[in-house]
């Protein structure tokens, strides 16, 4: 809502406060003022001039040579506007004037003839093109005759106005009108309010003789008032009215349309003027549209209607979409002489339905949707009649025709000083509450500190105690509330175990060298089914699809974090960041339902993606590309940190490298996977060798033991023995290690692989794997022969099991 302060001054005294101060006060107590606009930058030395003569420029066809009386002097001005004529009163920028855009007016010679100033268009005076009335849009602005020659144009054209832009919350529909704003400002500034005096002069002829009104659905249209005004003279509206409309962001059209718009803005009551002679009947019937009925609206578009749309008809066919837009066939034109003026109350929900169905939104529909003041419907109609009488020479017929079942009962709300203070934490006195209610102009009955407040119908947003609490608090001022801290039960706050563990895992990932990324949960069709971890138990999982996605890229909920994480790697790679390691901790959304009947299960996962160089230390010849074992080291480190025994088993997964992928299990429970993404998959993204891991955090949470176990530090020395087996190349190191551990238990405490070799000096198809074994006894120092015995046993049993032999 754009609020012209010059206009507002008619209802409330704001002369003693600057626009900035006013904006600040309103923002703090009521409605956020989003900005202050000045209609035009100060234009000085622009006055009303009278065009005494206007002739063609001797040397230029398209220029006119004018002699202009500006009061204190006469100026010769060359004007290029096509509409300049002798006898007009125009805006003249005298030499020395500065127009918006810092445009300085000087004496100049145009084609050999002197020009001492400029005759201005509204645009040149700083008014936005879109608000300039169409009839003057292509040339200079012409004043009505009643302005004085030499008068300063700034006030005449309202160029000194400041416009406050109100960012209204949906509850404050009362402020969609200048009068509503006036009540608000009067309450905040503790000022009086001056409402327009509405008196209509009617002729004896009665409206009933012209029209009857019938409302079929009184629920959707509890009040319909029809005024008849005849002998209308359609012409431009008065300058002041045009100024206000421009200030409010509405382009002036003609007096009839301007008056309905003016009253709409003044009272917040939408009005509509029909050309009575185009009605083709003498009745108005308000009803629901019939299925597939059509109407051509004012914007010349044909609208297909349904029974959801309320329409105004002439008894046969629709002539307006109730509360939204009039029809083209009954539009007021230059030829109109008699109008039917509609002042009605339409149900907001019904109007919203029509707005949604047609996509039409107007100043009128916005107000109906948010709810109008039932007490103002009729008076607004009368206000328009008064203005039509004054500015369109209209004759108002006696008695409007009404159908009225409107409920104008005022609600009451009970408040007490004590309860207000208890809820706010304040010590407001009863007298202060009285004063606040008076400022708000809410009537009330008072019994000591108990008030029964009568809520005016303009404030449809107030119905319960808490609404009144807000009214009192905001007028009292939120700045005046004390700062306190809650005095209730003082339970200590803490993270849950799960939340704590999440943080620990993140910290581990970061100390392992990975950066945290946050990607989108919504992905595209192709990615929605990629790289899904084999630990997910549900069999027929399907990605959840949005009903109305905004784009193809974001229409399915992810079943894996990895595709979007890989996209992030590709994004970085394309920007020259070729060495990247990212992880993300986030939810995936699991369901087996094609059409959801319940929420999908949201499972937390930890995913990582790495590519490029891991260590780059060239001058000491230590460079390491990210490979399977770099990533495995991080994952193993995580499980070691969590004290969970993780095992890795070769796995074949689609979109993964068939020879470099493993599933991960903890206590034989599948928990995720790790490996190189299939080169063909990342090639499309312009990525080279890329590795990923993906871990089911839900299973980590349930396997994790919170309390650390304290064990004594070993007292007795350990003995280390190395051993190298030559085995078939298909034997995997992990299996062999597990066998050694099994055979060596309980004396073998640790088995570490320190060398893997294949090639020269070994038979074809064989490889050597060397292990380092650590022996220790918890209660004594081991003797050599005890170790030797176990060592031999390991060699014998391993050789038997794997058909291997010792490398000497």
């Amino acid at each position, binding site marked *: 809502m754009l609020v012209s302060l010059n206009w507002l001054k008619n209802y409330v005294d704001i002369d003693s406060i600057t626009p900035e101060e006013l904006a600040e006060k309103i923002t703090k107590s009521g409605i956020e003022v989003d*900005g202050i606009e000045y209609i035009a930058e100060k234009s000085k030395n622009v006055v009303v001039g009278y065009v005494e003569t206007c002739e063609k420029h001797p040397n230029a066809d398209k220029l006119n040579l004018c002699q202009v009386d500006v009061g204190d002097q006469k100026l010769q001005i060359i004007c290029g506007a096509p509409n300049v004529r002798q006898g007009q009163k125009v805006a003249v920028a005298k030499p020395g004037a500065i127009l918006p855009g810092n445009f300085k007016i000087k004496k100049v010679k145009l084609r050999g003839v002197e020009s001492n100033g400029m005759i201005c268009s509204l645009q040149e005076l700083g008014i936005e093109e879109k608000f300039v009335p169409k009839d003057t849009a292509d040339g200079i602005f012409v004043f009505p005759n009643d302005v004085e020659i030499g008068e300063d144009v700034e006030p005449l054209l309202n160029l000194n106005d400041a416009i406050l832009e109100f960012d209204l919350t949906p509850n404050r529909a009362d402020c969609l009108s200048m009068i509503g704003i006036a009540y608000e400002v009067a309450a905040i500034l503790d000022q009086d309010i001056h409402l327009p005096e509405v008196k209509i002069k009617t002729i004896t002829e009665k409206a009933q003789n012209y029209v009857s009104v019938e409302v079929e659905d009184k629920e959707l249209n509890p009040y319909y008032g029809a005024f008849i005004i005849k002998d209308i003279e359609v012409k431009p509206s008065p300058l002041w009215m045009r100024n206000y409309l421009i200030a409010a962001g509405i382009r002036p059209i003609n007096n009839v349309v301007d008056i309905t718009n003016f009253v709409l803005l003044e009272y917040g009551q939408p009005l509509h003027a029909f050309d009575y002679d185009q009605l083709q009947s003498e009745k108005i019937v308000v009803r629901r549209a019939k299925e597939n009925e059509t109407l051509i609206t004012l914007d010349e578009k044909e609208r297909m209607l349904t029974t959801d749309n309320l329409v105004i008809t002439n008894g046969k066919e629709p002539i307006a979409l109730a509360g939204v837009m009039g029809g083209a066939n009954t539009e007021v034109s230059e030829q109109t002489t008699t109008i039917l003026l509609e002042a009605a109350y339409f149900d907001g929900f019904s109007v919203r339905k029509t707005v949604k169905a047609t996509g039409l939104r107007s100043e009128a529909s916005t107000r109906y949707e948010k709810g109008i003041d039932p007490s103002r419907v009729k008076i607004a109609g009368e206000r328009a009649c008064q203005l039509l009488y004054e500015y369109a020479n209209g004759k108002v017929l006696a008695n409007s025709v009404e159908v009225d079942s409107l409920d104008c009962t005022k609600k009451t709300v009970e408040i007490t000083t004590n309860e207000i203070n208890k809820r706010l934490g*304040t010590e407001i006195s009863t007298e202060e509450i009285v004063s606040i209610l008076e400022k708000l102009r809410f009537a009330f009955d008072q019994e000591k500190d108990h008030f029964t407040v009568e809520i005016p119908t303009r404030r449809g947003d107030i119905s319960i105690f808490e*609404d009144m609490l807000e009214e009192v608090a905001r007028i009292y001022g939120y700045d005046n509330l*004390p700062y*306190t801290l*809650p005095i209730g039960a003082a339970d200590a706050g803490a*993270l849950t175990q799960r939340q704590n563990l999440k943080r620990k895992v993140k910290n581990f990932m970061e100390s392992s060298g990975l950066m*945290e990324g946050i990607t989108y949960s919504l992905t595209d069709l192709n990615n929605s089914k990629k790289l899904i971890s084999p630990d997910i138990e549900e069999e027929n999982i399907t990605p959840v699809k949005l009903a*109305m996605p905004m784009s193809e890229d974001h229409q399915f909920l992810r079943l894996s974090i990895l595709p979007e994480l890989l996209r992030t790697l590709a994004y970085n790679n394309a920007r020259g960041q070729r060495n990247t390691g990212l992880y993300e901790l986030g939810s995936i959304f699991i369901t087996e339902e094609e059409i959801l009947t319940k929420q999908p299960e949201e499972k937390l996962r930890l995913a990582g993606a790495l590519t490029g160089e891991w260590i780059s230390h060239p001058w000491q010849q230590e460079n390491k590309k990210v490979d399977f074992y770099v990533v495995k080291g991080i994952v193993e480190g995580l499980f070691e940190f969590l004290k969970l025994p993780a095992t890795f088993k070769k796995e074949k997964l689609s979109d993964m490298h068939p020879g470099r992928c493993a599933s991960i299990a903890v206590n034989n429970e599948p928990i995720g996977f790790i490996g190189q993404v299939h080169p063909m998959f990342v090639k499309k993204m312009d990525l080279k060798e890329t590795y990923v891991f993906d871990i089911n955090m839900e299973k980590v949470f349930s396997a994790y033991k919170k309390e650390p176990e304290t064990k004594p530090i070993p007292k007795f020395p350990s003995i280390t023995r190395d051993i190298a087996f030559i085995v078939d190349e298909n034997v995997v190191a992990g299996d062999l290690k597990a066998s050694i551990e099994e055979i060596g238990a309980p004396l073998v405490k640790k088995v570490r692989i320190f060398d893997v070799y294949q090639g020269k000096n070994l038979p074809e198809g064989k490889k050597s794997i060397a292990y380092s074994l650590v022996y220790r006894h918890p209660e004594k120092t081991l003797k050599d022969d005890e170790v030797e015995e176990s060592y031999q046993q390991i060699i014998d049993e391993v050789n038997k099991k794997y058909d291997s032999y010792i490398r000497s």
Partner: protein
Amino acid sequence: MKEQLESLQNEALDSISKTQDLKKLQEIKVSFLGKKGSLTSVLRGMGKLSKEERPIVGEVANRVRSSITAAIEQKNEELEAKAIEKQLEDEAIDVTLPGRPVQVGGKHVLTKLIEEIEDLFIGMGFEVQEGPEVETDFFNFEALNLPPNHPARDMQDTFYITNELLLRTHTSPVQARTMREYKGKKPVKMICPGKVYRRDNDDATHSHQFTQIEGLYIDRNVRMSDLKGVLNNFAKKIFGQDREIRLRPSFFPFTEPSVEMDISCKICGGKGCSVCKKSGWIEILGAGMVHPKVLEMAGYDSKEFSGFAFGMGPDRIAMLKYGIDDIRQFYVNDTRFLKQYHNA
């Protein structure tokens, strides 16, 4: 013999002082003190001495031996120190060459901020709650006093999956869930951080996915001044002790009264600049006293219990705090962007 010993001593001391070599020193030691050394051979002649002479010469001999031994030890230390010095000199390196790099990871700037806010509220006795990102229409809207047909429930703003299920548009449903869990009896003191989704086209100031932190406190006798105090603590801790807050009226269906909280603009100190749109204030969050309908729907007696709630956007706060001008930066994860906040 005494003279012999003394001349031996002089000879030994002389050659010890002259030597500059550890190996030579060892040879000197052997040649004087060794089994076949000159001192030893002189001492062998002791047996021929008279009883009276023996102790005297013995004493001289011991003096000579210890003086030579001491000299050798001293020289040895001296030479060893020199040798080490020499070795260390040879071991000198170029300390300006780069070290072996360590992979440095770090948290996402939003996570950092969210954890900071979590810790701040935990310090004020709040617990952290989480809730589903796919919500029911009931919890996302209805339980928060947004009945069907409410204008704020525009289909256009919400990612619906079915008529009943949607991507949560705010973290407020966690309020409703927690209140129900506490069955209208226990006080609630929680915050809930999480991802939320809106049907927006992504641009510099809009993202279809972003984060929110919701806060809720319900107890007997909760006052609006408590809300102001808690928010003031929050603002000063997150934005700086020198910042002021102000509350101004606003509207949310689930709170009444509803307010928005602004903080004084750091850039202009409240005088007005382009960042604060010349107002001197920057909008940070929405808050209010929990609407009695929301309390009642969750089983709390609104005569007995009252409470406050607030909701903020970590994305926006991070943008303000660090001068980030494009919300999409948070989700494209350019590592050069992410790295800038790792020490935050």
